[in-house]
């Protein structure tokens, strides 16, 4: 059941899927180089400074109900309306580590494309490394700022827009909280903010540990790639604070090149499990603005293994809807014309 994968080119098809320059597609005739993140999870120390710095800058409310989740050191669980950076913690035994390595070797064997300068002469050293008895993966997740962003495409109000930096941003003053974007995101990033999780801790007769009033309640919220900092040439808060440079910010093209170098380096160090996520412009979302270096399959980190922007099939859907509507008219005609009195 293979999908009709490569959409027909031409017209505005490139604006729905496949390689493109998203800022140009959105009417930015002159625009900045596309910016993004490269999150190298192999050097993440799981300190969560990114989570805090993000909340500080964006004044996002505290999340969750202040209970231990039992998910290793992860107590924020995932990206959402108020948590725009999230650090995942995964504990793996030797068997899982070997599986991850095996899946990495398989990727190499598949002859995955190496876009860019061919380095075919330097074969990857794939001498089997010592399998660690145990490892603890940490990875800071964030909005992918897709080349083809489902959330942005389906937004009816124009609250979500493509910036001159190629990023995808919600305008909280415009959004009316319809929630369509939540369903539109293949990565489960964007969410409508409710006040449920930001409730103050109250005690008899007094309010303690109260938070500032929940800002931007009822509207969709997600990472803005710190658009409000970018316009003044500043670095996003998470990347600026990251102690080990696991989160890198910069021009997308340069980051992707650096990411490829890093994977090569790790392979040479005997870590075949290293792989990139989002660096392929031919993938289902046209590549992502936020690129990740992972050490296992994406779903291990809570990332979809083969995301596809829903609007890639928009033409099919509208066509089918058109047929259906026409069928409805036809049925009505039959009912009245053929029905007699």
């Amino acid at each position: 059941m293979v999908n009709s994968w490569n959409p027909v080119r031409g017209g505005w098809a490139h604006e729905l899927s496949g390689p493109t320059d998203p800022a140009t597609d959105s009417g930015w005739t002159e625009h900045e180089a596309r910016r993004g993140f490269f999150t190298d999870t192999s050097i993440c120390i799981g300190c969560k400074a990114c989570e805090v710095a993000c909340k500080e800058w964006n004044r996002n409310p505290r999340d969750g109900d202040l209970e231990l989740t039992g998910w290793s050191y992860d107590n924020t669980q995932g990206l959402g309306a108020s948590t725009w950076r999230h650090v995942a913690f995964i504990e793996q035994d030797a068997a899982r580590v070997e599986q991850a390595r095996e899946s990495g070797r398989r990727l190499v064997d598949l002859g995955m494309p190496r876009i860019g300068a061919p380095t075919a002469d330097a074969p990857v050293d794939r001498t089997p490394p010592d399998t660690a008895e145990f490892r603890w993966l940490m990875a800071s997740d964030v909005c992918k700022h897709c080349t083809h962003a489902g959330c942005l495409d389906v937004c009816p109000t124009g609250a979500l827009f493509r910036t001159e930096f190629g990023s995808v941003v919600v305008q909280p003053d415009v959004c009316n909280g319809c929630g369509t974007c939540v369903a539109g995101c293949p990565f489960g990033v964007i969410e409508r903010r409710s006040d449920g999780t930001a409730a103050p801790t109250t005690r008899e007769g007094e309010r303690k540990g109260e938070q500032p009033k929940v800002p931007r309640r009822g509207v969709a919220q997600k990472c803005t790639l710190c658009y409000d900092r970018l316009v003044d040439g500043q670095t996003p808060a998470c990347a600026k604070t990251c102690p080990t440079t696991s989160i890198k910010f910069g021009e997308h093209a340069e980051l992707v090149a650096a990411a490829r170098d890093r994977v090569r380096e790790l392979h040479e160090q005997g870590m075949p499990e290293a792989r990139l996520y989002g660096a392929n412009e031919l993938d289902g979302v046209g590549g992502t603005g936020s690129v990740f270096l992972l050490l296992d399959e994406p779903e291990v980190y809570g990332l979809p293994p083969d995301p596809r922007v829903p609007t890639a099939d928009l033409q099919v859907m509208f066509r089918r809807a058109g047929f259906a509507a026409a069928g409805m008219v036809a049925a009505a005609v039959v009912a009245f014309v053929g029905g007699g009195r």
Partner: protein
Amino acid sequence: MGRLSTLQWPVVRQLRTGDRTGRGVAATSPTTRDLQPRTTTADRVVQSVCPYCAVGCGQQVYVKDEKVVQIEGDPDSPISRGRLCPKGSASEQLVNAPGRQYEVLYRKPRGTQWERLDRDSAIEMIAQRFVQSRRNRWQERDDEGRILRRTMGIASLGGATLDNEENYLIKKLFTAAGAIQIENQARI
């Protein structure tokens, strides 16, 4: 709302700009177009040092209308190069913490509740108790007649989160008072 003229209606902007699908330029709101970071609009930036651990990361404190609006790492610091850990990153919240206490409180002996006390009275009361307890527990000499010249009536704990200048004054005052029982986190 003056700019809500028909020409600014995004549908019209979709036609006027190249943004046919309304996903970029045409969709921006006036607020978005005027966006400026509060690090830029701050009245001043003050260089500081993170108050948590002993690495001593540099901080930049952004002040607007005499309120701290943002604290970030200081990229100039050769120690931290602009980076902060989660605690350092939360420094602004430490300063503007929802549970922070701004008033002097007093609990009298056997009291079940806090009471308000103005600061001057509180310090005067503490000074009186200091003097009294110092005398009550004064030790001039030990059993063998050696000079002690100290009081065992007053103790202090703390200092590792304080400034050198503050620790200096505390130690000086306590030494002059003969109060030797003074300790801090270095030993905990």
